[in-house]
């Protein structure tokens, strides 16, 4: 017995297929590297900059949620992905702007400092590409 739901999941051009898999890959790399870096910072030198390193951990969680929700099919996960990526975009814009306006407060690097300059500005581009991707693959309600 086939239902419309299973048919939809098998569509090869869906949100989690094709270019979507590359997007998930890049998010996955950022999730791993941000998590590892945050754990390292918190484990070894948390006292030096608690705010910056808490921010690193927060960024890592956002990347993990974004990676998982992008990889999961279904409208609910698309919503989770949209929220996570909006938070990510907000984070990189706010932290990026603050790190330029008040460099003294952001001496300790995080993924989002200076709009992700240390990571080749990928942290700035990634949420924009992610949101475009989600918008183009939104499900009709």
């Amino acid at each position: 017995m086939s239902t419309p739901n299973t048919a939809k999941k098998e569509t090869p051009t869906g949100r989690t297929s094709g270019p979507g898999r590359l997007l998930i890959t890049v998010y996955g790399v950022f999730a791993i590297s941000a998590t590892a870096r945050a754990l390292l910072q918190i484990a070894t030198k948390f006292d030096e900059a608690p705010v910056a390193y808490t921010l690193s951990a927060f960024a890592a969680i956002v990347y993990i949620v974004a990676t998982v929700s992008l990889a999961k099919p279904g409208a609910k996960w698309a919503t989770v992905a949209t929220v996570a990526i909006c938070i990510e975009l907000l984070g990189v814009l706010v932290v990026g702007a603050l790190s330029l306006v008040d460099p003294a407060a952001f001496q300790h690097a995080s993924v989002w400092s200076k709009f992700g300059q240390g990571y080749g500005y990928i942290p700035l581009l990634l949420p924009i590409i992610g949101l475009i991707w989600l918008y183009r693959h939104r499900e009709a309600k």
Partner: protein
Amino acid sequence: MILDAWFIIGAIVGLTSTVVCVVAAVMKKKPNDVTLLALIAVELFIVAYAIGSIIRLANGEPLAGEPWEFWGYMFTAAALPVAGFYWAMMERTHWSNYVMSAVGVTVVVMLARMAQIWYGTGLSAQAAPALESLQQGLGI
């Protein structure tokens, strides 16, 4: 960071692997022997680097940074080609080659960080501003 032979060879292997996979993807080819070999080359380099590093340590060469951080990078770098291959093969289209192309360049970035840990020019809070900007430029 210091450009030693390990990093230079690793960078050549990693970037070549990325270029091969991107070219195959642009040509709309599905993953084939050539792109698979490009991924295997990266894995073999990491294994060689790991063995080489153990020998260097055994010969008394100093590891300036935290050993667990260095080996953490090594382990993750070794897992990447396997994870990339698995993720690429779950849906075998020319997009799989783009996924696999991400492995090589990511490993090169990690190798740069590993060289920093080995020679002790790490991301310390006391690092000179010039060093900080160098690391920013390296994308780490």
